[in-house]
């Protein structure tokens, strides 16, 4: 086995030359920044347990998709599900790993965390520049008992292309027809108002610096830095605070059975406790791997993570997948990842 792997690795002459040493048990992946912390954590733990060493480069979802289409890495990772036609033509299998949530943060004098109540429509109006003052009648009406100052709203968004933006803009598109019409959803969009900042840290620092600022970040970032988050109204009409319980409620309502390529839509799910801005992050793996052993190791790695990685994912504020989805992914591996003569690899 080991010899075969080494021979195959040497076969990838270009890679072997650039990396200097061809590690028998190394797997390489590239893409999304959003799940990078949990992949790194899993990589550390799996190395001790399975001997597989993960080399993950968080270069962004778009870059990850490009790299796996060109087969320069063993797997690609992306926050937005890949276009089905591209998956088809690139001969890729897509599967989910963890779920995560996006939360809204504010800097309004006198407003404490989870005190302010917002709806998707209000958020869309704010980011479209239709609501420009914190004491706008619409905001006051939704927030009885909270004193809102006469202060300009400064919307802040991710300036770099980002899966977080994709999720947030998808939410605004889902709840506001006007947003869907004028702006839409992508990893970067044409923002009608506000200013951009680079990365989660850039957005949170800009909101922190700007009186009247509002922004969106991944939940893990808000939680670790104790940012002032807000409540959002979900599809069922209830205001919910961003908590692990609310994220899990949203995840539990996902319609996995009918999702093509596992591309389930977790935005604005029904359920009284569901947090409305939730998403899944994905891995793309070649169906016709050039190096079967490396792909087998990728599946072995994620199989290990599905079995043993939930605790560390939860500790990092991600939501683990339901067991039924994990089982479905395993059978998808078995059915789709094949050697040239059509035999399953895992």
């Amino acid at each position: 086995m080991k010899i075969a792997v080494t021979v195959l690795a040497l076969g990838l002459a270009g890679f072997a030359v650039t990396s200097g040493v061809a590690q028998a048990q190394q797997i390489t992946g590239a893409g999304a920044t959003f799940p990078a912390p949990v992949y790194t954590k899993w990589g550390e733990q799996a190395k001790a347990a399975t001997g597989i060493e993960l080399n993950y480069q968080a270069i962004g979802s778009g870059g990850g998709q490009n790299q796996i289409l060109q087969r320069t890495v063993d797997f690609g990772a992306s926050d937005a599900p890949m276009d089905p036609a591209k998956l088809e033509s690139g001969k890729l299998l897509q599967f989910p790993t963890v779920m995560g949530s996006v939360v809204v943060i504010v800097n309004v004098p006198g407003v404490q965390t989870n005190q302010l109540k917002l709806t998707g429509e209000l958020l869309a109006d704010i980011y479209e520049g239709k609501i420009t003052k914190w004491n706008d009648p619409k905001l006051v009406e939704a927030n009885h008992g909270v004193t809102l100052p006469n202060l300009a709203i400064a919307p802040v968004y991710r300036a770099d292309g980002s899966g977080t933006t994709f999720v947030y803009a998808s939410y605004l598109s889902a709840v506001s027809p006007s947003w869907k019409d004028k702006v839409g959803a992508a990893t970067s969009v044409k923002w009608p108002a506000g200013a951009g900042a680079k990365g989660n840290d850039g957005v949170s620092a800009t909101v922190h610096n700007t009186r009247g600022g509002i922004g969106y970040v991944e939940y893990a970032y808000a939680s670790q830095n104790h940012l002032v988050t807000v409540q959002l109204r979900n599809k069922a009409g209830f205001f919910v605070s961003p908590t692990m319980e609310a994220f899990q409620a949203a995840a539990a309502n996902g319609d996995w059975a009918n999702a093509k390529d596992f591309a389930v839509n977790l935005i604005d799910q029904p359920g009284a406790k569901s947090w409305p801005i939730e998403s899944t992050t994905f891995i793309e793996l070649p169906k016709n791997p050039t190096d079967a052993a490396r792909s087998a190791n990728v599946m072995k790695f994620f199989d290990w993570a599905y079995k043993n990685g939930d605790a560390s994912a939860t500790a990092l504020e991600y939501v683990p997948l339901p067991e039924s989805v994990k089982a479905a992914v395993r059978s998808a591996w078995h059915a789709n990842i094949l050697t040239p003569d059509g035999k399953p690899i895992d």
Partner: protein
Amino acid sequence: MQQAVAANPRPSRARSSPGDAIFAALAKASGLLVLLLLGAIIVVLFLGGMKAFRAFGPGFLISDDWDPVQEVYGAAVPIFGTVVTAVLALAIAVPLAFGIAFYLTELAPTWFRRPVSTAIELLAAVPSIIYGMWGFFVVVPIMAEYVQPTVIDNLGDLPLIGFLFQGPPFGTGILTAALILAVMVIPFIAATMRDVFETVPAVFKESAYGLGCTTWEVMRSIVIPYTRVSVVGGIMLGLGRALGETMAVTFVIGNTNRITSSLFGPGNTIASLVALEFPESQAGSLKLSSLLALGFILFVISFIVLAISRMLLRPRLKT
């Protein structure tokens, strides 16, 4: 280099060894390599941007639309931001750099000149990401907390100039970016000015002093006219750097693809936009092509600026 050789003919050698020929060939190859690399980069950027140039035509240069959802891209906003921040930066940096060079060459005591000169050169060696972080964590909060609210409240409603000072006080924006850029280009301009001021023959200055001129009069009537062309060349060098700066600007400009009239309004520059959008661009997409086209445009702008600066500096560089 060839000019230098031509200008100083070497004494005739008794015989040429093969080593000379090999060295000459190597040196020539190095020179050609630079040209080849430069040409290759331009060609790659242009070919990469072809798709965007084809799709949008000349309108690419004047369209202010940048909409990744609709796949409509235009270069006007980043071109505007690039040029305005660079020009504003120069407006701030040139007087300061002139002051530094004037002080160092005419006023400062001799023992003090070396440490200050070294400090300026060190300033030029600070990596731009450090300027970016300094801008983001120090300058932006000051702008957001004190400068912008005060100015917006007091000047924002004035007729004629009020439009320059409106909008929410993000702290980031065109002016903040120009400030950071100014600090970054001061060392280049100041060092060039100092060097060319020192090339003024002492006899000119002494004659002027002998006629009873003050230091300022000597500066204004002797040193500046004598070095005018080179000073402009040095400023152009600074402009070249300001145009291409990426990381520091990304941190503080606000990264918005809109043209705002306010100095405090967010904007974008070519280099910053490319750095931000590149990781999320799909291979073969119109977006990637538009980013490469932007790179080509920046190349052309920088090339023009540097060509002008070389042209202005040439007479001084020869002596």
